[in-house]
């Protein structure tokens, strides 16, 4: 298991009951990693698209692709080489933090403040996963109360 690489895999599946568990069972049953997984229906079709971020050696990745393809409701499996990848994050800050500083930082990461209430500020960013991670480091000084990441979605160029 040398040279583990991070890979982004897209899977097109029939949008039917238990199809997601077929995929996650495959990963857990065969000991593969899931770093993140997103799933949503493809508009105007009977299919859904999953984006799975995983890691493993070349052989493991090849097995993952083949095993995914073996599942009956799976239409296509892509492993992305040249891709546009984005992830969203929502962050909740105490109202006492500086609204303008947070806003400026969000802008640098393709985001903005989306809600300000009596107690909290909620901000969002949407960027490459690595940049989202950097953003989350940068905002530590604003004492975030809650963070939610969406997991990556990707499209091949």
């Amino acid at each position: 298991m040398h040279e583990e690489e991070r890979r982004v895999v897209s899977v097109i599946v029939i949008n039917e009951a238990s199809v997601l568990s077929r995929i996650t069972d495959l990963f857990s049953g065969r000991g593969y990693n899931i770093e993140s997984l997103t799933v949503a229906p493809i508009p105007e079709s009977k299919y859904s698209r999953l984006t799975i971020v995983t890691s493993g050696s070349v052989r493991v990745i090849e097995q993952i692709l083949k095993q995914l393809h073996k599942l009956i409701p799976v239409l296509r499996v892509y492993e992305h080489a040249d891709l546009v990848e984005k992830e969203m994050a929502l962050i909740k800050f105490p109202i006492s933090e500086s609204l303008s500083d947070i806003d400026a930082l969000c802008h640098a990461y393709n985001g903005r403040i989306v809600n300000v209430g009596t107690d909290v500020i909620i901000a969002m960013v949407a960027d490459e996963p690595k940049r989202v991670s950097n953003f989350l480091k940068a905002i530590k000084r604003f004492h975030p109360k809650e963070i939610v990441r969406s997991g990556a979605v990707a499209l091949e160029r």
Partner: protein
Amino acid sequence: MQISGAQMVIEALAAEGVDTVFGYPGGAIMNVYDEIYKQDNFKHILTRHEQAAIHAAEGYSKVTGKVGVAMVTSGPGFTNAVTGLADAYMDSIPMVVISGQVPMSLIGTDAFQEIDAVGISRSCTKHNYLVTDASDLARVLKEAFHIAATGRPGPVHVDIPKDVTAQIAEFDYTQPIELETYKPITKGNARQIKKAMDAIAAAKRPLLYLGGGIINANAAYEVRELAKVMGIPAVETFMARGTLGHENPLLISMLGMHGSYAANMAMSETDLVIGLGARFDDRVTGKLSEFAKNAGVIHVDIDPASISKLVNADYPIVGDVKNVVNAMLKLAPEKIDPVRYEPWLETIEHFDTLHPLQYHEDSDRLKPQWVIERIGELLGDDANISTDVGQHQMWTAQFYPFSRPRQFISSGGLGTMGFGFPAAMGVKRGAPDKVSINVTGDGSILMNIQELMTAVESKLPVINVILNNNYLGMVRQWQTLFYDKRHSSTDLSVQPDFVMLAESFGGIGYRVSTKEEFDAALKDAVEKNVVALIDVTVHRLENVLPMVPSGGSLFNMMLEYKDK
């Protein structure tokens, strides 16, 4: 036509040409059993445990090549069937298993005999369905049979809630199957096949590595032809026994953990492995880094995921092995000159002479290997041979003179003790003109002994030959070899009286400790054509040899064991 879900099950099975269903009724599946009572399309064989129903259907499927069908109820009925599903999945046996489920309105309420059946079967079936509307049943059952039998075969599980079997809906079984996400590749890539043939032509020491996929694909006779035309020697996996036939001069033997010295040495010395429908299982390869170290690899398999999973294939060919072998046969005469491999055949001959597969007779006690050979001498091609799991299974694979595909029925991948007897019942049902033998051990036979009742009732005269060493022999062997003889929980000296046991069920029992007694018992059982237990007392401490210790290299075989 408007019929109930339960009637749809009967109609679908009739349309698929099913002549036998093995099963066990219960609350959630009662509507279907009510319809079974009214029909005469197929025979229902009532086993005495759900696990046995699945194994019987597996045996039936393996001997006939048809899809095996079994039926169970919800909850414990289904969970008892899981071992069978897992067994069929590991050995790629086409099966459709139908289970009852609690009514839709109760699903998720922890109802009586409720279990998330499709959740459990997901990881041990090729595919599964929970049918939530009777109008889906025709499509689902048709797809189930199609998926089970095509591509790499396997079990498909269909879970039907009780109210769905009562629901009246439209049934039309003539609609074509539309599975746009499931299209197995069956025809091998022509250019890749040509390249593979060039590699064979260039090799000096090629070796055919034959797997169970050949038997699944009904390609054994094509493979025999291919081996002959090319003059290339072959090793068989456990699952492929019977492919070439024991008299074939090109067959070396079985390879792997208990393979012959010559077979394992051939695999270690070959310069080109020609894998046909085999999956490089760990019991075959031993230590992977040392396996066929200097060889190129051609790998033909219907399942792309089997290729380069464990051993990298230089010539991967995805396709039905029968199609691919036929394509290879077309190219063989112009590309391959059998004379080229004659020195290689001599080398293998030398390996075989050096350490042939053998055992030493003992004047006191019968040797288990002798019993296997003797069954072969007395019955040969007239018997189908099932086994349970353990030492007796390996001795059968080593010493029985298999002459045809589908003659050997055994649990290879999962290694399920208790498989043999019910499987042998299914075998008898599928091939009534052959004697159905189950070679078993004193451990395994007790794991589904209740099937004596099924066999007697349904007139399935299986002859169980118990190689009785008063041990859980294979585990005892490992304890002797690798655990300093600490025989933890493997001494089975406390035993039932097998003769009385057989007779209490209405079968016939024999107690055997000499060659003469064995011959007489086997002949009598065959002649009487009844369910039999032949309890053969064999040498207690015999080991299965040769042996490649787990994780060792194929060429480092333990050939003999001397007790110190």
